[in-house]
């Protein structure tokens, strides 16, 4: 019986992605990288904000510029760094497997899945800190609604703690532990870096 299939590139891509995910186990590593780098992103931007605040920067433009360039740098760092490390690790893995199989595995589904995984993980790794840090900077993008720059700083720091809490909840969800406790653990890291920053 002839098969009539609607050609849909997106659904085909999703099918391929699912298959590669099953082979290369992208989900777990992606999740780990996402949490780790979003956490990194928030703490870095806390550092930038506290630094600006302590130095008495009262220009929104300066805060947005330094914050945004930091976000971009973190994004590029994540993208580049993880692509290089991830593809190096996976290449080595493929080579070991090729040696065990006595057949080159690079042109098989495993090889393609492994290259796909390196790209997806690099994208996650780049976007996670960038987006997390951008969320914290939101008050500065709408600074005109705040009465003073100090209140913008405080709101942004408040959002950073909330983002950290959200990340903690995300991690708690993975480890299936108490979500509030897990959220508080990540918030503490934010509070510690704020306090140390203020003391300097």
């Amino acid at each position, binding site marked *: 019986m002839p098969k009539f299939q609607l050609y849909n590139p997106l659904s085909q891509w999703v099918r391929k992605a699912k298959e590669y995910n*099953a082979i290369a186990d992208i989900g777990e590593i992606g999740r780990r990288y996402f949490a780790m780098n979003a956490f990194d992103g928030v703490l870095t931007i806390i550092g930038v904000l506290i630094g600006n605040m302590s130095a008495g920067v009262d220009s929104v433009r300066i805060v947005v510029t330094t914050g945004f360039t930091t976000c971009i740098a973190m994004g590029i760092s994540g993208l580049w760094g993880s692509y290089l490390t991830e593809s190096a690790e996976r290449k080595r893995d493929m080579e070991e497997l090729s040696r065990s199989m*006595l057949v080159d595995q690079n042109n*098989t589904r*495993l090889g393609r899945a492994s290259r796909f995984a390196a790209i997806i993980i690099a994208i996650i790794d780049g976007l996670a800190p960038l987006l997390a840090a951008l969320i914290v900077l939101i008050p500065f993008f709408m600074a005109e609604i705040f009465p003073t720059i100090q209140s913008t700083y405080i709101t942004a720091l408040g959002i950073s703690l909330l983002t950290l809490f959200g990340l903690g909840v995300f991690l708690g969800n993975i480890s299936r532990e108490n979500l509030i406790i897990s959220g508080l653990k990540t918030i503490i890291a934010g509070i510690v870096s704020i306090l140390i920053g203020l003391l300097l």
Partner: protein
Amino acid sequence: MIGKIRRLVLDTLKPIEPSIIDIARQISELDGITAVNISISEVDHRVESAKITVEGDDIHYEDLLKLIQDLGGSIHSVDEVVAGKMIIDDAATLQD
């Protein structure tokens, strides 16, 4: 008209992943194949030996070979083949 292959028994070596469940599913989707049986005979550090038995009305060996290779496996030997209008087993002889 070329004779149709109805049963093939292959001795293969495959990486641990993808699992034989995935491989069996994918082989069973090939045209001309009605059933597939895969059993593991030996497990090593990263690879395992699998005996793949396929039956069908018209097995395309080249497609099967391509799929197994694409899944990372390699065929060591073709241990049994049945072709024709029906499936027959090897006949018992006095020497057996």
